[in-house]
């Protein structure tokens, strides 16, 4: 046999061996069910972690979680391209979405707080002052009793759920003036931590010692204040389905809403469970008190 022939033979053996190996170790799927959840990057870590746990406990199922943003999630679920659409917003708040066809499953509550660079030296603002800062009426922190540095606004991208919630409840429906936009919360925190005079807003889970979280009107951004709606800047995290869910989709959503996840994963990842809330808010922002609260 020539040298070339030998190499070919070895190659063939290797390929066959790999094939056998792959066959032996292939994912054995009994039901072979799989669903896809797409959308909000703020909700993605929770759905991903829950999906991993679920597929670990139920072999043969596969839950594929992708980001893409709230808009993508809602338009994909509306088009029926995926089984679950992850959203930071009520479907009715997003333009171009027919909310009537979609069913809302609330799986978490996220609190959002304004953060500022530590060197500004402020810890509390009134809502009025916050609006002045974000609409450009105040351009130097000195005017509010802080140090003498110009205000640097950092916004999240237009259409971001965090930004929509912040403008609706933090700025009481005032629009922030056009400024820098960043498309992730981690990036926002880093910029605020390093830029003198910077102010922005992130979910509670992103606050750490590098930035100063602001109290509003003397109310601290804590989970307890969110539960009672004393801290007003919070939103639900939604899993949307088109029509009633069934099969794996239904089982997975029930799993995420079950105490097993709500009392462990949801809290570990820095969200609140909707069960903990003492109030309920509808799509128009109307708050109703829940009598006694759910268990």
């Amino acid at each position: 046999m020539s040298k070339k022939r030998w190499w070919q033979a070895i190659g063939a053996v290797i390929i066959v061996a790999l094939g056998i190996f792959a066959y032996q170790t292939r994912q054995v799927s009994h039901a072979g069910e799989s669903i896809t959840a797409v959308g909000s990057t703020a909700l993605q870590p929770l759905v991903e972690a829950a999906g991993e746990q679920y597929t670990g406990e139920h072999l043969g199922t596969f839950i594929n979680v992708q980001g893409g943003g709230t808009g993508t999630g809602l338009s994909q679920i509306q088009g029926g391209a995926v089984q679950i659409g992850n959203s930071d917003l009520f479907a009715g708040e997003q333009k171009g979405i027919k909310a009537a066809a979609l069913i809302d499953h609330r799986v978490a509550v996220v609190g959002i707080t304004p953060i500022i660079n530590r060197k500004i030296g402020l810890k509390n603002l009134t809502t009025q002052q916050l609006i002045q800062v974000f609409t450009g009426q105040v351009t130097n922190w000195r005017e509010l009793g802080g140090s003498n540095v110009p205000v640097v606004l950092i916004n999240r991208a237009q259409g971001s759920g965090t930004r929509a919630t912040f403008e609706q409840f933090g700025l009481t429906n005032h629009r922030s003036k056009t400024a820098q936009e960043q498309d992730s919360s981690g990036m926002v925190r880093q910029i605020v931590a390093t830029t003198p005079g910077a102010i922005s807003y992130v979910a509670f889970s992103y606050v750490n010692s590098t930035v100063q979280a602001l109290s509003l009107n003397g109310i601290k951004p804590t989970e307890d204040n969110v539960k009672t709606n004393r801290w007003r800047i919070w939103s639900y995290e939604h899993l949307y389905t088109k029509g009633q869910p069934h099969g794996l989709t239904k089982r997975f959503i029930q799993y995420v809403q079950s105490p097993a996840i709500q009392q462990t994963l949801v809290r570990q990842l820095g969200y609140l469970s909707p069960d903990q809330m003492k109030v309920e808010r509808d799509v128009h922002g109307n708050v109703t008190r829940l009598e006694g609260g759910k268990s």
Partner: protein
Amino acid sequence: MKTTQQLEKQLKRHSKAAKLEIWGKVVSFSALLLIVAVVVGIIGFVASKGIATFTSNHVNLWDFLTEKKWNPGITDANGKPEVGALPMIVGSFLITILSAIVATPFAIGTAVFMNEISPNKGAKILQPVTELLVGIPSVVYGFIGLSVVVPATRAIFGGSGFGVLSGTCVLFVMILPTVTSMSVDALRSVPRYYREASLALGATQWQTIYKVVLRAATPGLMTAVVFGMARAFGEALAVQMVIGNAALMPGSLVDPAATLTSVLTTGIGNTVMGSLQNNALWSLALVLLLMSLVFNLIIRLIGRKGRLQ
């Protein structure tokens, strides 16, 4: 003994080589067809989506190109959506032109060194280095920009550090290798006897480079610069990471700004297919595509002019 019929059949039959020839032609032609279909498909798709802003959402094309407010989700006092793309168009052109202005002298200087002054060292050291620079992914440039250029800009000029200047710095490094390697090709294509004739007339090396080689290579050098500009114009990720993404007219070089690409990448995930916000982004993509087309045309034009001389 063969009959004439058999002989005729044998002669008219395609030989093995001829069959291979036909097969080769079919393969290459279908590859060509596929590429053409993809290009036409992309242009058609972007155009149909991009035009929807003006046809189905009734935005005035002139307003789109000249207004300065970009808030597609919000309507102004007259009930018209605020889709003024001018800040992004200006931002894109600004950083493209600035980075080209900064990169060109460095690129041509490097090319002259590699080709005229020290071809040996140039080939050994600079050639691999530029080739390496071409291969670095843009996200790496963006990351370096974020962790080095932005803090440096902030420390020197104040503000947040995000802005046109940081974008220019990052893009300058990104397009430098492209412009350099194309400039080298341009200088290399200048015939040897030009240099010999110039030196024989008593010109110094510098005079030869300046008055003969660079002049003769001008069309090629211009192509190189325009090519670099085309790359800068279309670059998204690295720029988006350092420019700050504020849809404002940049008042100074350290102000945050936005480019067509940076608005596209940050915005597309937060909009719903078919809505005005989404269509407006597609319109930006259409502008981007048309500009790339213009850059290509300029390159062709320069090439043709160079050949005529």
